[in-house]
């Protein structure tokens, strides 16, 4: 089943690239969403649907995939976001093909139970992102691409070294996750191994000050928002910290925990500050994403059970609402022809449906209780408070700031006096709105349902760090 879930979007994506009509691509995205929904609901706990096939057995590398609570949740949010994008983004079939390809690679990344296979997907997912930017990006795309790729590769090569070192120094017979976990790296080398991982994941998260690739990446991407929605999902750094970097070299993590907590809190605050100053929607959302990732990272770095739970939940939830906001910005761009925040104004009168959807998404983003952002933020701050009350307070400021930037943007766009009316939501966009709002509500009102699968993982994580008993 896992394999089917990974291969379905890859297959449909490849077919779209060679000329399958766009409509069938949307259907494929929908099917993939339903399949992942089924997988999530039927997931019994523990690692389910584990598969293992030799890739390069001489070197201890296996195609190993499995579904646990964490990957099941991420599967669902990834498939949902791509489906939302396929519904509303006005892009040609090939673009959608790249998006589906990216979806498949992300699913592979989340399900990988072999460190080298994870690396493979981690790097391979670069390709569709790169091609999307290259073929459909704006004027400065080549420069944005360079920045993006150089940052990423500068991180991933040390990570490759860390992967090799984790196996060689830990003495594990293979790159399988359970083997590696049974042989964690000890002593002085642990710090170096952890730093190798941390560099790559901090760039992907992104953590301040390694975020410089982020704004140009979003600004130059296609205005439809589909690429940005995927870019939001591609920030897998926090996930990778939780699943690989920290458990494989816990001693190394503990040595730099304080610094990481500080960086995460700074990211949260700095992102919120820049988002407040942003003049167009993409920059605003990009920096808001940075801020949210900072909060999520703070949760995982706190090393507590609640913090990890909250961080991961926030990661999943923010993928959905930030992605949906990017897509909504794309819809606005199509109607008004610009992404700048100033010129819209007064859209609530002519497009009430759109205004309501935007309000919902923004409120979820600022963490209003009852919507999907809240449980994650609450748990994160609880966990962070245990680790460091001061930093938790600092990060909490970013939540307050998010209310300011989100509501300012909303007010300027949808209220006040507008220059001209625009068309309200239509056709498939209503479907998009309904699905997005339903998800926000379900994730906000029934967090326990989603956290159930994460809890054992967070407990195990807490134990690796020497907590619990």
């Amino acid at each position, binding site marked *: 089943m896992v394999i089917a879930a990974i291969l379905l979007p890859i297959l449909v994506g490849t077919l779209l690239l060679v000329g399958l009509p766009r409509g069938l691509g949307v259907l494929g995205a929908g099917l993939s969403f339903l399949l992942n929904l089924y997988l999530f609901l039927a997931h019994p706990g523990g690692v389910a649907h584990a598969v293992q096939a030799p890739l390069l057995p001489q070197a201890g590398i296996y195609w190993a995939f499995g579904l646990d609570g964490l990957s099941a949740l991420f599967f669902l949010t990834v498939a949902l976001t791509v489906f939302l994008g396929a519904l509303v983004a006005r892009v040609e079939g090939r673009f959608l093909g790249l998006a589906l390809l990216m979806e498949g690679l992300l699913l592979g990344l989340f399900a990988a139970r072999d460190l080298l296979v994870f690396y*493979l997907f981690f790097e391979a997912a670069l390709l569709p992102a790169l091609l999307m930017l*290259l073929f459909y990006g704006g004027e400065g795309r*080549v420069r944005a*691409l*360079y920045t993006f790729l*150089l940052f990423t590769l500068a991180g991933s090569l040390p990570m490759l*070294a860390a992967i*090799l*070192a984790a196996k*060689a120094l830990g003495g594990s017979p293979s790159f399988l996750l359970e083997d590696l976990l049974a042989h964690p790296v000890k002593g002085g080398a642990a710090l170096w191994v952890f730093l190798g991982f941390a560099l790559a994941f901090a760039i992907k998260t992104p953590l301040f000050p390694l975020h410089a690739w982020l704004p140009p990446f979003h600004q130059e991407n296609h205005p439809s928002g589909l690429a940005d929605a995927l870019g939001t999902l591609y920030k897998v750094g926090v996930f990778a910290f939780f699943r690989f970097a920290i458990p494989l070299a816990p001693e190394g993590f503990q040595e730099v925990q304080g610094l990481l907590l500080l960086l995460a809190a700074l990211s949260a605050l700095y992102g919120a500050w820049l988002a407040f100053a942003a003049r167009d929607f993409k920059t605003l959302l990009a920096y808001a994403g940075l801020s949210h990732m900072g909060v999520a990272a703070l949760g995982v770095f706190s090393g507590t059970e609640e913090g990890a739970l909250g961080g991961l939940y926030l990661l999943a939830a923010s993928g959905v609402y930030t992605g949906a906001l990017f897509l909504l910005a794309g819809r606005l761009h199509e109607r008004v022809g610009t992404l700048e925040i100033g010129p819209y104004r007064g859209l609530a009168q002519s497009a009430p449906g759109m205004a309501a959807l935007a309000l919902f998404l923004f409120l979820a983003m600022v963490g209003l209780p009852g919507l999907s952002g809240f449980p994650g933020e609450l748990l994160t701050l609880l966990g962070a408070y245990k680790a460091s009350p001061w930093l938790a307070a600092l990060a909490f400021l970013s939540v307050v700031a998010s209310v300011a930037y989100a509501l300012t943007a909303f007010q300027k766009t949808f209220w006040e006096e507008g220059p001209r009316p625009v068309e309200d939501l239509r056709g498939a966009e209503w479907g998009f709105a309904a699905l997005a709002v339903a998800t926000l509500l379900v994730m906000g009102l029934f967090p326990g349902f989603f956290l159930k699968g994460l809890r054992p993982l967070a407990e195990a994580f807490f134990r690796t760090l020497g907590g619990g008993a």
Partner: protein
Amino acid sequence: MTLLILAFFSVTLTLLGFFVPVPLFKRLVILGLSLGLLSLLVGWGRPFAFGPYQADPVSQAFTLLALLGALWTVGLVRTGRFEFYLLVLYAALGMHLLASTRHLVLMLVALEALSLPLYALATWRRGQGLEAALKYFLLGALAAAFFLYGAALHYGATGSFLAGTPGEGPLYALALGLLLVGLGFKVALAPFHFWTPDVYQGSPTPVVLFMATSVKAAAFAALLRVAAPGAPDALALLIAFSVVLGNLAALSQKEAKRLLAYSSIAHAGYMALALYTGNAQALGFYLLTYVLGTGLAFAVLSEISPDRVPLERLRGLFHRDPLLGLALFLSALSLLGLPPLAGFWGKYLVFAEAAKAGQWGLLVLALLTSAISAYYYLALGLSVFGRGEAEARPKPLARSVALLVALFLLLLGLFPGALLPALAAG
């Protein structure tokens, strides 16, 4: 068998060349090379020895790569004179010989047998390549002299001309050092690399393809026999030099062939790292991905111009001819070592060997320089997507081969295990 086939075709075709029309001649050369390739596959995994000639797994694997390069070169070229094809065939014979012997004197003969035709090939277009060829010739002769001294000292130190004879003492170390220098020239290891950029830039592109792929394969086979049993520590120094110098120098290149020339120096460094950590399998796999990637890049460049190709001239290639553009893009990514392309596994295996051998210093250096290489490979690969008017008049065959190789790079990247056992057994 391979030796006999190649020798038979070389001699017969030399005589026939004056009577047979050139297009037919070209086909005969292709036939000869293909039969040689076929005989390798038929005899795969079955060693054969006759005096100093030893067709063992190393010889088979590395000859296979060399013949692939030779076939590719012959296929790309269209010239009205039969000598071109004949020279490639002679060089291929020399390469097979070089890969198939432990005997240092025979190695020297083979080295010359493959170098002399290449000197001539480098001058193929009169006027243009003369300076390059002269440089190549002079330095090649110097390298041969180093090798000869090395062989003599090796005999003096161990009483044997067989490479890999264990020995000790300063004389032996000096002998190994000199042999290393001689072969280092051929594979373009820094600091014996300085001919490479000029020769690559000045020679016709299909010939450069030949130099960059086949010559490296054959010379690394020889290097494997000379240096593998207890690789001298001097090699570590050459590796460090090569990866740093090659990658840094490639950064500032604005011309595709020069860029690839410097990057080939860096690749020689990575391959030597595999050699240093004593793994022929990793070396072979790396070389395979390198031959495919570099071969593909040069094949695309030769469709654009047999001459210099500044990066600006590549702009717009993708829009003119999506297939060629994509092929160049993929080859650059593979050379960079980005998964899921085959080049990644080449690098992975080399790096994993280095980690296993505990060579952390070299490993970190290799990784850092690899990250640097991303910059210029992206410049090369992305240039085809820019806006501009690249001229390309590709032949249909060249396009289908380019497509095939690009696909193979992808498949090999996804299923490296399918091919690696063959390398392990063979």
